[in-house]
């Protein structure tokens, strides 16, 4: 899995590419979010456009840090999850927990 982190209009955008699963992929995602929160960046956008699959450990990270971000006045929003990722989130009853956007710009602007 590849990860690209950048800042856009006071929002931390974390772009992922490839399967996000237990091991280095999930570790990288966790580290990126932890660093953002440690720097006081609680407005997080996770771009899933190029992610074909996430496993339950990745879902656990997203849930955990959604709660952390919200506790600190921000949020964690998802961009363009594919049909299978949407299905996966629905199967575990979490689809409605996240704000989901069709485009990164829309997700970033939703914070303003």
């Amino acid at each position, binding site marked *: 899995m590849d990860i690209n982190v950048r800042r856009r209009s006071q929002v931390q955008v974390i772009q992922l590419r490839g399967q996000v*699963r*237990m*091991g*280095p992929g999930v570790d990288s995602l966790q580290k990126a979010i932890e660093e953002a929160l440690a720097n006081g960046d609680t407005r997080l956008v996770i771009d899933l456009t190029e992610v*074909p*699959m996430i*496993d*339950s*450990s990745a*879902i*656990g*990270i997203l*849930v*955990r840090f959604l*709660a952390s971000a919200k506790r600190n006045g921000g949020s964690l929003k998802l961009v363009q999850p594919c049909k*299978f990722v949407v299905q*996966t989130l629905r*199967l*575990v*009853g*979490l689809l409605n*927990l996240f704000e989901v956007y069709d485009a990164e710009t829309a997700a970033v602007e939703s914070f303003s």
Partner: protein
Amino acid sequence: MPSADNPGDDKKLRELLHLTVPAHFEAVASAADAIAETLCRLEVPEQKRLEIGLAVQEALVNAVVHGCGNDPSKNVTCQMQSDGHGRIIIVVSDPGPGFNSVSIPDPKRKENLHSDHGRGVHLIRQLMDEVTFERRGSEIRMWKY
């Protein structure tokens, strides 16, 4: 009792893949990839491939974490077979003591919804058509029709 049309009838099964890998996340990810490649070669439809792939990933991770205690000196085995009807069975086993599959909390209950773990077995059951646990839970058998 198993019959020719019953997915429990192992006598008719053809072995597609048999892997033994160290209990390490990168090793089991490679095993999951090998399963996905085999399914692709068999021209299994994409949606079915994705569902099997995620279920296998969850089973392998459970085997590493719970069955092997994250000890890479231990091994996890993964076997994929098909029957005469094109149905796929995948068996993942570990050397651990097993677990009680009935006692797993429902991750969709309100009190569990915000937990950062505990969704793997639920996902496997949702993604596959038939799931059984053998050897006191240290072996999971997953069917996709």
